[in-house]
């Protein structure tokens, strides 16, 4: 009897939200976005670009606002400002004696502040809350098209240049020595980062999009010593986080972006504690002599 009650409960937990069109759309789109960000995440984690991810994702803010105000696709504005911020970071770093992490912090907060000021100045129907914290439940049809297009583009780029990008993250000097265009790979990865930030911010918003870009990769890094497996684990954990995050947000009336990222953080925590080889408790040691 109890079991029957439980199974009915679980079925309704899973099925009820699916009866709403906006929930089906949110689940699909967020999973797609999560997969793309998770895919990129293994590269960013290994390259040590967490701060760069944070910088780019915050810097897209004024781009989004301007694009909305001008009626352009928001991804275009976001992309221009994302890449622009990185170029500016590179320029200031090269031309001054200020250290890189300071320059990164300085540039992205400047851009972010510009975005906030613009929102308050440009009177339009921009919803600051949805930019900052994401609105996967209220995603429009044109946003869906953009997201699908950008996601496909990023996946294709990362797949075609997969081996070169791994080499670039691992040993750029060797890449250069054997005649591979390292500068191209640098900007390719940055472009993918900007594009992923653009799609990611719809799910979880500007403030938290960096989590989508680093947490799945970091989790996967604790669980495997193979790059391919790392990418697969990263993508799967990102999708699971999105799906569960949206469900929790539906049932317990939580902020969706925060809920998704919190699930990601919990999965990381679990790996951090119990990963077979690199976790604190190293389960493998308990069961075998290896």
């Amino acid at each position, binding site marked *: 009897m109890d079991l029957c009650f439980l199974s009915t409960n679980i079925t309704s937990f899973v099925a009820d939200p699916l009866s709403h069109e906006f929930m089906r759309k949110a689940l699909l789109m967020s999973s797609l976005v999560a997969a793309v960000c998770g895919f990129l995440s293994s590269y960013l984690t290994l390259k040590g670009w967490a701060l760069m991810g944070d910088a780019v994702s915050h810097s897209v803010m004024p781009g989004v606002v301007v694009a909305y105000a001008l009626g352009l696709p928001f991804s275009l504005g976001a992309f221009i400002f994302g890449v622009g911020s990185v170029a500016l970071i590179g320029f200031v770093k090269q031309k001054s004696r200020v250290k890189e992490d300071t320059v990164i912090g300085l540039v992205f907060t400047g851009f972010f502040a510009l975005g906030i000021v613009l929102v308050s100045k440009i009177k339009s129907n921009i919803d600051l809350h949805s930019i900052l914290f994401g609105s996967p439940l209220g995603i429009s049809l044109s946003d869906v098209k953009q997201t699908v297009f950008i996601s496909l583009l990023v996946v294709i780029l990362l797949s075609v240049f997969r081996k*070169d990008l791994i080499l670039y993250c*691992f040993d750029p*000097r060797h890449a250069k020595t054997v005649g591979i265009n390292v500068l191209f790979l640098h900007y390719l990865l940055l472009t993918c980062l900007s594009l992923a930030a653009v799609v990611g911010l719809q799910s979880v918003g500007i403030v938290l999009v960096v989590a989508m870009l680093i947490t799945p990769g970091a989790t996967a890094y604790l669980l495997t010593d193979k790059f391919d497996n790392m990418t697969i684990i990263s993508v799967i954990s990102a999708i699971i986080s999105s799906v569960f995050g949206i469900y929790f947000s539906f049932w317990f009336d939580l902020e969706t972006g925060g809920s998704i990222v919190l699930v990601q953080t919990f999965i990381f925590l679990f790996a951090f504690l119990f990963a077979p080889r690199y976790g604190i408790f190293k389960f493998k040691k308990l069961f075998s002599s290896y």
Partner: protein
Amino acid sequence: MDELNYKSYRIEAENICVDYHGKVALYDANLRLKAGQICGLVGMNGAGKTTFFNALTGFVNISKGKIRINGESLRIAQQDQSIAYVPQSEGIDSQFPVSVWDVVMMGRYGSMNILRSPRESDIQAVKDAIERVDLMEFSSTPIGNLSGGQRKRTFLARAIAQRASILLLDEPFAGVDIRTEKLISELFIQFKNEGKTILLSTHDMIHVREFCDLVLLINKTVVAYGETSEVFTPENITSTFGGMSPDVLFGPES
């Protein structure tokens, strides 16, 4: 005749200067090496050894001077896979999730298609290279699970798989076990017989005397350069190491 002579140099660096954001790391450095020569690069930490390597691989741009590899520009040397660089242990992320096979295969990337899909010949080259450094049983092992010496051998195998005519080795003997040291020594003799040109940096004075036909002493610029027996004198070593005597630096037997 002059042209012929010019072409016979594998490496020719002429008055090269490198600066990082206005800070001079290396100036007026010269080096000429032919096929089959082994040259030791000796200097203090921060004397510009790694910078010299970076300039020769094209990883940093030189602000002045000229580098010719096999009589051609660096760009052509890169396309021809002429130079292989073996990094020092600190220069790479040893926890990166790649296996020995993956790393050695990277030596072939420069001559593959854009997707870097290996041909039969690439697979054979990688197999041969891994065999030569005696790591066959570790070929699918992640590099994070190797010892320092095994990791060093992995990068040597990458250079072998690349089939480069010039090998640049940054501290090849630092932090390796006896077995690896012996294997590297044997490889050096084979490389020399194959006509490869080797430039290696080292802190170990005994290795310089043992392997190097030539020695390049640097301290931001060339202090002395020539045949090891002539140039590797206590006076030159002292001035290379900023006035400290070799006795203090390396013990009385040096």
